[in-house]
């Protein structure tokens, strides 16, 4: 995808319309080489080549996204607590060690993807974090079920939603804290967890040390980092970050509208949709003509597993199946691979994921003013020689 220039340590993503040069950085705590989108508060993108290395994203190259600049730089797992309060029988507080001691441990592989991953490819362009495709990652999360923690506090009848708030704060006291909510049923579905470990390591501070919420199959806006407050609400959360921020046109799975369209109903962003990518060949690469060439990549089903990944080299007229790699569970990345024979000249490989609910990536991109939920079939342009 990206062109790198080692000398300047910059990279062109590349996005349409320019303004796509970014620095590469290794200077963030707990992080290896990352694409620097913004220092304050940090927005760090995973370099594309990382996704070819395997199904799980290395912790030190897992993308980073914060909203407010006041982020604790000292965090003690002995004193940082998550407080369960609101519409509950008793208010409870837990450090990470308390969680480890009192509740059953669970492990789950799940993709964490920013709502605005790939926003930079929207046409017409929309303001926001101008990401390429690297605002996503896959990890094995270890922690406890949120359900078990909520049950310990005792959710009272009449509870509607559960609200999550982490330790990041706005620099300006009157600005709205980042708070996100899930329905009580979702929060208690047994999949949502509080996790302190990813891929066998504790979370880097910039990924939410000592623990964060994991909401499998849902966009990362709900995966509250440095989780501090879990509030059971007896009415719907109307705070700014639930609405109008992070809302999509009410036509899931498209999340689509026409630029300028009036009277569109917006709802909070929610379940992810399927995506797939080629990872071993970048657009612009040369491949051999007339002999089988390995093409490989990753896919995920969104809020459910991957049923099939198909490829096309005739603009989507015909599709060929690929071989799927090991299944790490329905919320994980899944590798796929195939061999393709190209005729000499310019070639385009399209890749399309179908999930286990039968939902397929669309051939035309969606559009919405937030730049959310892009999942169009991706094209990789190659030169066969």
């Amino acid at each position, binding site marked *: 995808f990206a062109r790198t220039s080692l000398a300047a340590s910059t990279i062109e993503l590349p996005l349409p319309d320019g303004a796509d040069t970014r620095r590469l950085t290794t200077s963030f705590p*707990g992080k290896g080489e990352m694409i620097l989108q913004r220092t304050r508060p940090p927005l760090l993108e995973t370099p594309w080549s990382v996704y070819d290395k395997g199904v799980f994203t290395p912790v030190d190259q897992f993308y980073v996204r914060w909203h407010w600049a006041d982020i604790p*730089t000292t965090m003690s797992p002995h004193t940082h607590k998550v407080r369960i309060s609101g519409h509950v029988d008793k208010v409870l507080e837990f450090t990470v060690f308390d969680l480890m001691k009192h509740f059953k441990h669970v492990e789950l592989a799940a993709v964490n993807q920013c709502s605005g991953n790939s926003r930079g490819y929207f046409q017409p362009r929309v303001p926001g974090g101008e990401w390429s495709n690297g605002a996503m990652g896959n990890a094995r999360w270890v922690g406890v079920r949120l359900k078990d923690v909520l049950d310990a506090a005792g959710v009272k009848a009449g509870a509607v939603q559960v609200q999550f708030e982490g330790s990041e704060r706005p620099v300006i006291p009157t600005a709205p804290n980042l708070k996100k909510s899930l329905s009580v049923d979702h929060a208690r579905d047994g999949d949502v967890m509080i996790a302190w470990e990813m891929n066998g390591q504790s979370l880097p*501070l910039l990924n939410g040390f000592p623990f964060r919420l994991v909401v499998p199959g849902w966009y990362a806006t709900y995966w509250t980092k440095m989780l501090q407050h879990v509030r059971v609400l007896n009415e719907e959360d109307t705070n700014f970050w639930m609405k109008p921020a992070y809302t999509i046109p009410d036509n899931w799975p498209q999340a689509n509208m026409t630029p300028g369209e009036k009277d569109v109903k917006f709802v909070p962003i929610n379940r992810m949709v399927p995506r797939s990518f080629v990872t071993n060949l970048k657009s612009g690469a040369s491949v051999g003509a007339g002999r089988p060439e390995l093409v490989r990549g990753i896919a995920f089903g969104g809020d459910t597993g991957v049923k099939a990944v198909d490829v096309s080299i005739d603009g989507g007229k015909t599709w060929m199946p690929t071989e799927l790699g090991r299944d790490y569970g329905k919320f994980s990345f899944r590798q796929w691979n195939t061999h393709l024979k190209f005729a000499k000249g310019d070639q385009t490989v399209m890749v399309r994921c179908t999930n286990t609910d039968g939902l397929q990536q669309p051939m035309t991109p969606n559009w919405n003013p937030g730049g959310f939920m892009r999942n169009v079939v991706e094209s990789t342009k190659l030169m066969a020689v």
Partner: protein
Amino acid sequence: PARVIPGNGDVYKVGKWPTYTAELAAGPGRDTVLGHCSMCHSVTYITMQPPLPAATWDAEVHKMIKTFGAPIDEATAKDIIAYLQAHYTPQTRKQ
């Protein structure tokens, strides 16, 4: 990767991370923008944007004021919008 500084026991303490910020285009209003638009986030958030239509910049500045509580009065907002429109629209953006 940058060093994680070992603290007391298991305290996770990190040093300052880089504060690199992109250069804003030279021109009247530049200092006003630097003064008011880098309170909450670096102005890289301006240069990172694709060329945005003039009306979008107007809307963005008012969004910062109304929804995020940026303490910017209307006269200052006008100057900021004029600067952004003079350097960061499809017609005016240089690089």
